[in-house]
């Protein structure tokens, strides 16, 4: 449910850029999806073909580049991936703070013909 409206937005953005470029067809869409964005690539994929029907994006290939989130340790500055139920820095044991890495949710590029 959650990804339905977001997939509509993706198609709208891709169509807009395709149209601006005078394209007759969007061949592929490359998405950058951080694991803390809250959006599931597979779920977007599930809705994509359905919503893309009849648009410039019909039949386009959806390329999803996942990004793993990083925490930064405020004590030693190390960046690391968190372990389950913990934010602890593996180097010094302090609690890491969230960074922007992992929150990505954008269309990187499209290819058109």
């Amino acid at each position, binding site marked *: 449910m959650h990804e339905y409206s977001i997939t509509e937005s993706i198609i709208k953005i891709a169509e807009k850029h395709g149209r601006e470029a005078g*394209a007759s067809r969007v061949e592929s869409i490359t*998405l950058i999806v951080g694991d803390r964005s809250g959006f599931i690539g597979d779920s977007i994929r599930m809705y994509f073909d359905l919503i893309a029907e009849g648009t410039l994006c019909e039949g386009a290939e959806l390329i999803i580049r996942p990004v793993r989130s990083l925490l930064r340790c405020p004590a030693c500055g190390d960046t690391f991936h968190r372990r389950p139920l913990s934010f602890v820095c593996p180097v010094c044991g302090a609690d890491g*703070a969230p960074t922007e890495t992992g929150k990505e949710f954008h269309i990187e590029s499209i290819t058109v*013909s």
Partner: protein
Amino acid sequence: MHDIRKINVMENIHDENDHIASHVREDLTEKGIFAINVMGAPGIGKTSAIKGLIEKLRGITPYVIEGDIESDIDARALRALGVKTFQINTFGACHLDAPLVHNAVGNMEFDEKGVLFIENIGNLVCPAEFSIGEHALMLICSVTEGSDKPYKYPLAFEKADLILLNKVDLAPHLDFDEAFFMKGLRALNKDAPVIKLSAKTGEGFDEAAAWIAARAGR
């Protein structure tokens, strides 16, 4: 044979929502309305907290937008108290977004300056991902949920401006590990005040209302 060309887009998929959200925020600011996005799991006490806070914010006109998947039970209870309440039913959608709130705000009459509580859908995940034009994000959690919630739902805790820990009257009967809860919470969010609350005994409401009044500039 068609030529295939690459176009760099680099466009955030949330841009449209965020754009509408800033419009909503500007509109409300102009009207003298301080909007609070109220987030929390189902049954955590969002409506009870809103009711209790409205009672404490005497002299400040309250408004409520009630987000529910279905039903208008909460809206009716608030209207019975004389609070101007607008109901949004999402019929399945798991969060409010800026276009929904934009529409609701457009349908409400704000005759006086005041505080608008926007009760989001009961859910600790999706509402955190969508800005709805709020001035502050109030997260309600509770001792009955368990102390691991900051670790499991980090985004909601990271984004919150005020965190209310509800149902503390039940703490003696539970194994809520407050130190573990606070450790995770503070790793994500250094600044948000955490206020212990009980909608049953009234504990914490004065403090939470004072925070809202101060932030609203009242």
